[in-house]
């Protein structure tokens, strides 16, 4: 990683970790969401064990979206976005590095917290490993797809809800293959590797395409 991109990663990481940043908020929201589900569906251990992976995945999706709406808006408001246009570093790479720092600050804590919450939801050892592995592979895709929505709503005041409406349909494939791989890990008709490989493929495709889409949206809206 060259020096300008390393500097950008460090800046984003610091902003996310400081007070008022999105780092801690996401994981607390994730914890709260998972904790309230048993109150709604009832404390039946068999039911919780069956729907556990789905609960964790939906909570991770919502926690990721909650933190993403300020990804580019904060830079647009304080003028940093204009200066990114003036740098020799391509905007696509800046978007990619911002997503990487954002994932490291908000997505990775979700993955680390997931095994403990999975225990709360009566997950067995294999199912627990399956959920953690799928979240580790799948949450970067959620961040990257969300970045398109964050870029498209960068000029909309309070665009968080609009961003969620734009992004949620795009995340359906990630959700389908994430949950099915996590459920397959604890046994079932489908082998674990088939949906897991597709989940990996979705993340790699998002890695290749989303920075271009988000940067194009930022360029178009920047004028």
């Amino acid at each position, binding site marked *: 990683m060259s*020096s*300008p991109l*390393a*500097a*950008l990663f*460090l*800046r984003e990481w*610091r*902003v996310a970790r*400081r*007070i*008022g*940043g999105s780092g801690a908020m996401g994981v607390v929201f994730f914890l709260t969401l998972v904790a309230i589900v048993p109150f709604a569906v009832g404390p039946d251990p068999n039911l919780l064990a069956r729907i556990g992976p789905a609960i964790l995945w939906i909570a991770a999706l919502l926690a990721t979206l909650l933190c993403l709406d300020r990804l580019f808006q*904060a830079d647009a*408001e*304080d*003028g*940093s976005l*204009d*200066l990114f*246009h*003036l*740098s*020799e*570093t391509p905007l696509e790479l800046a978007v990619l590095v911002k997503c990487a720092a954002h994932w490291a600050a908000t997505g990775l804590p979700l993955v680390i917290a997931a095994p403990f919450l999975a225990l709360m939801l009566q997950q067995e050892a294999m199912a627990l490993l399956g959920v953690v592995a799928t979240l580790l592979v799948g949450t970067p895709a959620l961040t990257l797809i969300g970045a398109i929505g964050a870029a498209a709503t960068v000029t909309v005041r309070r665009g968080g809800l609009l961003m969620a409406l734009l992004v949620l349909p795009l995340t359906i494939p990630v959700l389908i293959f994430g949950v099915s791989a996590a459920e397959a890990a604890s046994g079932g008709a489908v082998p674990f590797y088939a949906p897991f490989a597709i989940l990996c493929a979705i993340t790699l495709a998002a890695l290749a395409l989303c920075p271009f889409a988000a*940067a*194009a949206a930022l*360029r*178009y809206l*920047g*004028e």
Partner: protein
Amino acid sequence: MSIDVPGPVEPPVPPPVDGALRLCVDNLGVLRGGRRVLDHLSFSLSAGQALIVTGPNGAGKSTLLRALAGLLPRAGGSIALEGGPPDVELPQQAHYLAHSDGMKAALSVEENLEFWSRYLAQEPDRRSRTVGAALGVVGLSHVAGASFGVLSAGQKRRAALARLLVAFRPLWLLDEPLTALDRASREKFALAMRDHCALGGLIVAATHEPLGLNEAKELALGSAG
């Protein structure tokens, strides 16, 4: 799809002589919201010169600076910085300072400037100052470790001006650079601008107030109409 922001036209014979930069704006037109804000605007500026853009509110001063920085597409005409390295586009040789500072409130002044010096200076240039030296020039050394968010409006402005110094770029595009500055800071900044011109830099500044540059050219834009 992205709208192609037109880059500057490279000179046919690039003479990469230091200090021989020349900003040529020819027949520039810029649309904003379907309205032609600038039309048939031409001027040129040599290395070491400053241009003060004046005019009433809505005359297109900020639009001109944003177009020069490549942040607005041109509706016609050309903008070129002649005499620079042939493979570097104009926006990458320019500093753009507008009403917003480009600084994160959660980070310290030093961390903010450290970031911009690494992000905007592509290769080390002896004319770039260190973060500590730049803070000394604008008189902010005593708050280097403080969060940017707790500074006063004038101190924030001075930190933003320090950004121009930590990464040397020949063309400064300044939109109301003196906002919120006290008299002593204005004099310090006038000195920094004269230093920049002496190093072969160019300045285009939109302002309502005298900048303290005696030999500056002036461009008066018409009323909004």
